[in-house]
């Protein structure tokens, strides 16, 4: 397994997600596509973190300090924040639904001229 494969996987996930975000009419589907994009980023972050530092189980404190987990920590953060964001996004979708009886984002176009 090389780093490229993970990066390609991440890029594919990100591309699928982006396609969904840009093409889906339903707001829930857009949110789901966003999650896929997040996960593409997560895969990339973890893969880079794994492949840029040597893989040894640290046995001493000094070795552990060199065992960088930055990408993993970021990923955990992103998952947490994304969960919160989904909650927020769902709340917004509900609010939109209550005002216009529709969750199609093509209908929410007050910013048009």
């Amino acid at each position, binding site marked *: 397994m090389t780093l490229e494969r993970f990066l390609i996987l991440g890029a594919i996930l990100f591309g699928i997600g*982006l396609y969904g*975000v*840009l093409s889906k009419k339903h707001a829930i589907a*857009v949110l789901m596509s966003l999650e896929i994009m997040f996960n593409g980023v997560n895969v990339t972050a973890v893969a880079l973190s794994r492949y840029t530092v040597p893989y040894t189980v640290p046995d001493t404190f000094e070795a552990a300090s060199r065992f960088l987990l930055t990408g993993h920590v970021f990923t955990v953060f992103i998952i947490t924040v994304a969960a919160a964001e989904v909650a927020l996004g769902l709340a917004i979708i509900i609010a939109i639904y209550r005002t216009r009886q529709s969750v199609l*984002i*093509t209908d*929410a*176009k007050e*910013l048009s*001229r």
Partner: protein
Amino acid sequence: MINEQLIWAIFFIPLASFCVLALLVRPFFNSYSYISGPIAIVSIGISFILSLLTFFEVATNSNHNLVSEPNSWLEIGNFHFTVGILMDPLTAVMLVVVTGVSLMVQIYSMGYMKPPNHGSENAEHHGPEELGNPVYARYFAYMSLFTASMLGLVMAANVVQLFVFWELVGLCSYLLIGFWFHRPAAAAAAKKAFIVTRVGDFGFLIALMYLFFKTFTESVNYLEISVINANLPGLVDAGVITAGALTLIALGMFVGAIGKSGQFPLHTWLPDAMEGPTPVSALIHAATMVTAGVFLVARFFPIFEASPDAMMVVTIIGGVTAIFAATMGLVSNDIKRVLAYSTVSQLGYMMLALGVGAYGPAIFHLFTHAFFKALLFLGSGSVNHATGTFDMRYMGGLRSKMPITYITFLIGSLSLAGIFPLAGFWSKDEILLNAFKHGDLLSVSMMGFVLALIAVFMTAFYMFRALFMTFEGDFRGGSDKDPEAQAHGPVHLAESPFPMVLPMIILAIPAVIIGFLVNPIKDFGSIPAHWFTHKLEHSLHLPPPPAFDPLLAIISSLIALLGILLAWAMYKRNPYLSPATMGRVTDPIYTLFLNKYYVDEVYEKFITGRIYYRGIAQTSDWIDRNIVDRTVNIVGWIGINFGSLIRELQTGQTQMYATVTSVGIVIIAAVYIFGM
């Protein structure tokens, strides 16, 4: 005895009185507003005493260094604005006139403007208006402000200072003409006075600005009046400014004087100003403010003297006004308007005198005129107090009812008509004499002399017409018969109360004797003949005044007597030569006079309606709509139409925006990766 601080006090005491009345009594102590009359009178009284002392000091002292250099107020580059007193005989005379007449008028006002809490003993009879408390304090506040402004005007050492007070007296005139502002005629008259005089003020302002821009590079400060008078004619000789520029400055100032003094084309406001309370007319529109125009020309006399064209204009306007206003006075039925036209006519006399170079006589006439014209106005107010109307057609037979008013009015009329030996005789004679001696046959000065001589006849006629219509014959009903008199008080045929009668008696004294002040005929002990006019002219280099001419005096007196005789024949011996017959015989002219030469109509219909409205206003309107507005609209149209192209991109579709953003990022990334 008198020093600079005391001279300043002459101005500041009435101003303090105004501040107390307007800022304390009027808003906070209305229930004590009966003290506002005494406050005003005491302050003016102190000013009057100080003015008299100043006058004697200036009259007896040969060096006039009563005041120091003006103080600097503001300095911006070459612009030095100073504030100070210019004390010369002209100022001293004006101080006495202003404070003296103002004092008398304010005492009179105590009776005329009925004080509050006072009406119980003669509740059925009030002044022309039932006056509540606030009105009383307001009246005396305005009067104090006016007196202070007028004193500031005559003392000003700087043209800017002069102009400020010039406008302030105009403001006070507006406020006091419109004192009974709930009466539409009074409000309209106040507006008219303000606007018409503003036309003149504009000319004055232009003259001042022109003067400033012509001279601000000079080393001395040409905003100071003494500097202007001493140096400006010299600048023409030195070639710094042209003679035409000097004439222009003089004429601009004269336009201001025309507006303020009600001279010919701008005279229309003064008769209408009679809508104000009668004491106001006596003070402002007879004795003081309207003479500010004459004062202005006198103040800048060296400039006028250096410009023969300007002098000629002054003479012509003065002479024409003297006769023009007198003819309207011949036929007016309103006693106050007769006096108003008389005032305009007499102011024309003074202008005429200045125009022919008779500086001293002009100011002397201003001096005497102030007293007897104020007296006549106070008399008309007293008559109005009794009859409730100003229309002489509804008066008559008041001689036995109001003996003091009659006698004082008679003295004033005789003085104004120029009957020997009253004050008016001497001052009028001086003017006639100067106009006669200064000119050759067919000169402007001689034309002025002829006009003035005709005006003498008319003056005598209209004054005695007024006197006979008011005091002789049978009483014709007063306000009960007058359909237009509803605004005035009821008929109450009796002599006016003491505060009104007293000033009339006091003013009658100078109206009789003050002519001798000039010592008109020959040296009297240590006092040389014409010392008064000599004193006034001390700093000017004028030719010596002509000596008293008995023949001219007799001729002018005979002409005046002829006028009185005609009035007597028409209005006292009515059946022989009735006014109605005279009106029919002289009909087209009579109608012309009665309609005031249609000047008001010309202004209303032609100047305002055609030139101003059709010409200027409609053109401006067209330019505004079609050029200014169009330009603005084009700018807006460009914005809108360019915007509408870009606006199409704003679809409101979030996904479209996101797509564009993503494609943009991809392009940037591609450029970054492959392009480098």
